[in-house]
């Protein structure tokens, strides 16, 4: 299964970036093999509102089934939901650590966005 994790850096040892739309990187990890691909999200970092929608579309198009992040706004959440991507909010630590938590079933799927949309 592929899962997406927002990250400060482009590898498994990077810290989770709590922001979703404006995360520095989104690391897509195969939970079976731990192979990963780091997607540079820097264009979105300077994007105006809509960054969440763009990042959510990218995560969905890359075939990730789950997103692990810190905060997820309403438009991103709606887009992820429409794309069939489950969301786990409020995660922190390293990418590798949160993926291990996920594999051990130590995460809770979010039912809704956990921050308000903002300009």
């Amino acid at each position, binding site marked *: 299964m592929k899962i997406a994790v927002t990250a400060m850096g482009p590898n498994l040892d990077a810290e989770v970036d709590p922001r979703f739309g404006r995360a520095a990187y989104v690391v897509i990890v195969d939970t079976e093999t731990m192979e990963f691909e780091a997607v540079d999200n820097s264009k979105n970092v*300077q994007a105006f*509102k809509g960054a969440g*929608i763009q990042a959510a579309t990218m995560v969905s198009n890359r075939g990730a089934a789950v997103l692990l992040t810190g905060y997820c706004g309403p438009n991103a959440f709606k887009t992820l939901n429409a794309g069939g991507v489950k969301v786990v909010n409020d995660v922190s630590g390293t990418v590798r650590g949160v993926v291990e938590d996920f594999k051990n079933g130590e995460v809770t799927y979010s039912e809704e966005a956990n921050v308000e949309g903002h300009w």
Partner: protein
Amino acid sequence: MTNEEFDAYVDNLQAEVFSEAKTAYGEKGFQRWRNPRYHGRMMDANGYGTVTGVCGDTIEMFLKIEDNCVCDASYTTTGCTSSGLCGSFAAELAIGRDPEALFDLKGEDVLDFIGTFPEKEQHCAHLAIATLHEAANSFLVQKKTNTIHK
């Protein structure tokens, strides 16, 4: 949901955001949002300021000053739309002015220049102007230092 349905859903959501943006920032702010001007780091700036607001957003302001006149200005921000728009319009307001006259500019001038702006985001205009003042100050301090050493 098929790929086509998903794309249509995203397009519709984006259209809603555009509509909300026009309401929040008016036509002038919306157009600038779509085509941000004065954005980016300036390598040959001789005035530079960076300020982090209480909201956590940071704005950087770059000024190029020649013959006592701001001939170019640009900004970057870690923040969202409101910080970006205020940085862009503050840079535009700075161009053509005497660097000392930049201290006459206030956050309200940026808000007046944009016309329509969300009330709870207005601190961004003050942050942009504080950064502009910092940039002007860095230029003037450097100029004074150079004068003393001559």
